[in-house]
């Protein structure tokens, strides 16, 4: 079965991103596929490459990155939600004349069309809300 996952909570503020991560691992383990993981609203903070939690705590952004590399996942961050929260890729940093960018290279900034497309192409869309 084809799943897509939506995450709207920020890591360390809500459990949404951690729950979505564990759910995604089970989906893949059971032989299903994940078409896309879409990070929306505060969920965009999962895409930050600069999160530096203490070493004895889960690093949720880097766990997403590791899972994405292992399973070739499409991790999409809503561009409008991201730029207003200061989650920028190199292009957006240039566009808004910011001094740095922090979107992890395994994530992509894109629009809500990607969420609509995921809904059309997936058998199930599971939302993890804040």
């Amino acid at each position, binding site marked *: 079965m084809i799943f897509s996952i939506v995450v709207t909570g920020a890591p360390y503020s809500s459990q949404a991103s951690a729950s979505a991560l*564990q*759910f995604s691992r*089970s989906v893949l383990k059971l032989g299903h596929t994940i078409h896309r993981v879409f990070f929306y609203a505060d969920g965009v903070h999962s895409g930050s490459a600069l999160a530096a939690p203490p070493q004895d705590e889960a690093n949720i952004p880097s766990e997403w990155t590791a899972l994405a590399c292992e399973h070739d996942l499409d991790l999409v961050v809503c561009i409008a939600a991201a730029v207003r929260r200061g989650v920028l890729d190199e292009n957006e940093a240039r566009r808004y004349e910011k001094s740095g960018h922090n979107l992890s290279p395994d994530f992509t900034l894109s629009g809500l069309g990607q969420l609509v497309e995921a809904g059309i192409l997936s058998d199930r869309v599971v*939302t993890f*809300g804040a």
Partner: protein
Amino acid sequence: MTLHLINKTPSESSALRDSLSAVSNGDALLLIENGVYAAMPAYAELFTRLPGSVQCYLLEDDAIARGLKDLNQDFRAIGYDGFVELSCRYGKVVSWF
């Protein structure tokens, strides 16, 4: 048939009450995250009017993480694999939060 996913305590948001008013015959409820608190015996009254065909589940990992024991027997404890299986069994997954 729909799997209703609830991740808030009954006192923290109207998610549970809203979901209960939308549940139909043959649907299922799954409590996750803080939603598992709704399976405490003190909240059992909330679920007494559910149609008998509605199956109730809770995510065991989240109940254990919160130290919850002796929960409402009407809720079956499942893990993340069970969560995925339920998502497949029901046609839609609706999240209330």
